[in-house]
């Protein structure tokens, strides 16, 4: 059989995977280092009958994808740091109104305009807490181009399954990297679509929990004629201030992800069997860590890696297990410690957390990580 091997960039793969996942609308606003995703979507979407629009800013782009999704099209927007900040209010709307969309944030150095063209992992916490209020979060952090394709499809699937916006966090390096990869057979892809109502319009409620924590979703113009608001609402979609209903609804929103953590959490364990030192990494820094670990093993240092493919929700149980098992957890990040701050709380003095924080825009070199491994051995 002919293998499906071709040269792709990370940005191109986000676009390709999105379209293969069924995405038929893109609304965006150009920003380095994410613009290539918009460019690919502008080229490819009309070929499959989809539509692309460049909006006047990221606020508008975020609004447009929510609108298009409600109108029945899976939708993608892509941006970077400053644009991700602008999207936050409408991102919260998508959580509240339970509209599936995918937001790809190609991270760059911040705050503010920061380092537009340089590598960073600066938005780990913005992905979790960027919009106001409590809300469930799924954020994915691919480290390899094959994974960009695979996890973009997963992002769409999760958004459809749980009726939430899903965040794809790409390092600048991953978006711009270009290599030959083999894509999975399209016929074997698992593509999920939002659950549709099975009842007639007179019996339909857009937030009907009789069907579980994720209510079936009718699209606009399908005869269901319902109301959508960002205000706290009851099952009919209309505003309510009933404390019990609001409380129950917020709890349900969080439960959509929390109760399914087992299915969503996704990490790779690398050389962990006998490891007494662990590098806890994600995205491009995990690639440097892998080289460092291989080199450390040659020096008989028992070090392994836990690499997050999904960064939110975190694999809490695994982290707790590690904390009582290893003598040190090394967390290399291209930020000032956004993830290591969290890991430290789990560790609670049971193990040492060692941070490597580079924010200068230059990738963490394997030797930087190896030096730290040697220090803590």
């Amino acid at each position, binding site marked *: 059989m002919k293998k499906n091997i071709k040269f792709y960039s990370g940005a191109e793969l986000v676009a390709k995977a999105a379209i293969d996942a069924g995405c*038929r*609308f893109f*609304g965006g606003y150009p920003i380095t280092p994410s613009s290539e995703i918009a460019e690919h979507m502008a080229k490819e979407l*009309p*070929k*499959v*009958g989809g*539509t692309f*629009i460049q*909006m*006047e*800013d990221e*606020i*508008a*782009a*975020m*609004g*447009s*994808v*929510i*609108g*298009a*999704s*409600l*109108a*029945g*099209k899976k*939708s993608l927007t892509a941006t970077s740091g400053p644009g991700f900040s602008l999207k936050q*209010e*409408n991102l919260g*709307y998508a959580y509240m109104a339970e509209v599936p969309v995918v937001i790809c944030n190609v991270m760059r150095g911040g705050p503010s305009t920061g380092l537009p063209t340089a590598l960073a992992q600066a938005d780990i916490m913005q992905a979790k807490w960027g919009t106001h209020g409590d809300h469930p979060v799924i954020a994915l952090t691919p480290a390899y181009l094959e994974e960009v394709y695979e996890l973009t499809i997963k992002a769409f699937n999760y958004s459809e399954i749980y009726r939430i916006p899903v965040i794809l966090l790409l390092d600048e390096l991953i978006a711009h990297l270009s290599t030959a990869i083999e894509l999975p057979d399209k016929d074997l892809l698992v593509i999920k679509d939002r659950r549709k109502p099975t009842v007639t319009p007179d019996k339909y409620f857009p937030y009907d929990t009789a069907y579980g924590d994720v209510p079936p979703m009718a699209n*606009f*113009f*399908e*005869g*269901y*004629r*319902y*109301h*959508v*608001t*960002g*205000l706290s609402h009851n099952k009919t979609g*209309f505003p309510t201030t009933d404390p019990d209903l609001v409380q129950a609804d917020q709890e349900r929103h969080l439960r959509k992800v929390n109760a399914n953590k087992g299915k969503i959490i996704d990490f790779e364990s690398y050389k962990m069997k006998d490891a007494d030192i662990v590098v806890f990494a994600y995205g491009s820094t995990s690639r440097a860590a892998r080289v460092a670990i291989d080199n450390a093993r040659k020096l008989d240092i028992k070090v392994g890696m836990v690499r997050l493919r999904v960064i939110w929700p975190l694999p809490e149980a695994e982290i707790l297990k590690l904390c009582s098992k290893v003598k040190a957890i090394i967390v290399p990040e291209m930020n000032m410690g956004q993830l290591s701050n969290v890991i430290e709380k789990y560790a609670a003095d049971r193990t040492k957390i060692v941070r490597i924080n580079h924010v200068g825009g230059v990738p963490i070199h394997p030797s930087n990580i190896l030096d730290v491994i040697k220090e803590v051995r």
Partner: protein
Amino acid sequence: MAFDYEKYLRMDKIPHLWCPGCGIGVVLKAMLRAMENVNWERNDTAFVSGIGCTSRAPGYIDCNTLHTTHGRGLTFATGIKMAQPDKNLVIFSGDGDATAIGGNHFIHACRRNIDMTLIVVNNNIYGMTGGQHSPTTPIGFKASTTIYGNVDPSFDICLLARAAGATYVARSTVNKGRTLEQYIQRGFENKGFSVIEAVSNCHTQFGRKNNMSDPISSRKWIEDREIPLAKARDMKAEDLKNMVITGEFITEKSDLERWENYNRAEKEYTEAYSDIIKKVKKK
């Protein structure tokens, strides 16, 4: 025969939250009659809004309705229309929603000229949040944030829409429900972006602070300032100060259009995009 509003309303949501005598209801009724005039199916029509008293209107209409974030209704509507170009899109917005926080979306929606209709209820104030001044509060008037008299100049919503490229622009007032109905209908019929400004009363928040705290005196204030466009053309600028110029500012047949829209696209946006799809779509 009396018009059957109930056919289009979610009667279980009535009574509405608006103050008795608020002008928004007049605009809603005019819009429903216009909808009937053009025979739009409820299933094929979506109403979108931002945040504010005006933006609560879609919730009462038995269609596909979307109450979004403050000022952003047009952006959601743009996504819906791009996804489903055959459907009817109407956006409700207050003057603050449309021209302050949503001002950028407003001018770009006009420029893009996507086939949708925006109805701006201009009550010269932020009604919902307690009467702060808006970009259409007249100079010298009081608001809760201009207690010594407003010094912040106003936008003219229709001139703004016209300059930005909307292809149907008209203004009337809540004193003239029939005219509003006619303008809104023409907006619906225009294949492009239409802006209908309905000058309205907010006696509760604007009137109360400016010696016209009941609906009658608030509407009288609007009536006294109304000047039809044809008449305004021959009037001196100083006599038009703080007046409400009403009429159709731009129509398909407008003589202004020839030179004002010199760079206007030949085709409506979603139609032009469909042509691209036809050209490049994989066989």
